[in-house]
């Protein structure tokens, strides 16, 4: 059961993958289908295991991630 929720601002995400690499629950992946206006594959949540630890947001160089806790 999800304890948290990540929201990615896909317009400013540069698809660097740092958030993906630090998520302890493998919630995030770089999208295989979406491409944003800058040509990047943005990160997206692929399951509802988020525990709102904010590790992804801490590593995001572009402030593209908002984290909420239930």
């Amino acid at each position, binding site marked *: 059961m999800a304890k948290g929720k990540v929201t990615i601002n896909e317009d400013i995400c540069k698809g660097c993958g740092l958030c*993906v690499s630090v998520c302890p629950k493998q919630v995030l992946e770089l999208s295989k289908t979406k491409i944003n206006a800058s040509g990047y594959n943005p990160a997206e949540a692929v399951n509802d295991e988020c525990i709102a630890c904010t590790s992804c947001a*801490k590593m995001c160089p572009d402030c593209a991630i908002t984290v909420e806790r239930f």
Partner: protein
Amino acid sequence: MAVVFEKTKALTDLKMHYCPGCAHGIVHRLLAECLEESGDVKDAIVAVPVGCAVFANKYFNFDGIQCAHGRAPATATGVKRVQKDKIVITYQGDGDLASIGTCEIVHAAARGEKITTIFINNGIYGMTGGQMAPTTLPGMKATTAKNGRDPAVNGFPLRVSEMLATLDGPAYIERVSVSTPAQVTQAKKAIQKALEIQKKGLGFTFIEVVSSCPTNWGMTPVKAMEFVREKMIPYYPLGVYKDITAEGGK
């Protein structure tokens, strides 16, 4: 449901021009968060370098000045001597601070200028395209050291935090990194402490951030962070190098 992490208002809404995975964005955010949380955004003035962070003033939602290459500590000195009650920060890379601006940073530190310097050490010239920096590791490749830095030809890297810690002027010096979430948390604490010490007028404060440059290192952002942990940090050990507020000083 409560928001536990969102973009700080101390950054503007401009999209940063940095390459994917560049840690400048992380450190910009940490500085901005620290100032927002302490209520000091209205009193902050940042002196930005020549290098990739030359436009950092556009991203920070407070006053800023673009300096000549390496001269930010001198320019910040001029600003701070006039605006004594404001919080003055220089934000500089390794080419800027540890090469062309070595003189300025050493003397600002020695004078105990009541400013905070954030020093991004990623061992390479980023904006000009991957040339050897004063902090490039021995053996590390650069466009002006194509077979890797050879100390016999190019000399050895500078360890700036250690060097400045020998001076009496600095009040606080810490080397941090941002290659893991835990390191990011620690880096923020270090910046917070430096800014508090500046506000108390205790002396010069210096935070070195061991960072990455995925583009010019020729690595993915994730691999570059691994390189930071495996190669950079052993050469540039993290920790507090000076803290006059610690028990008995340090």
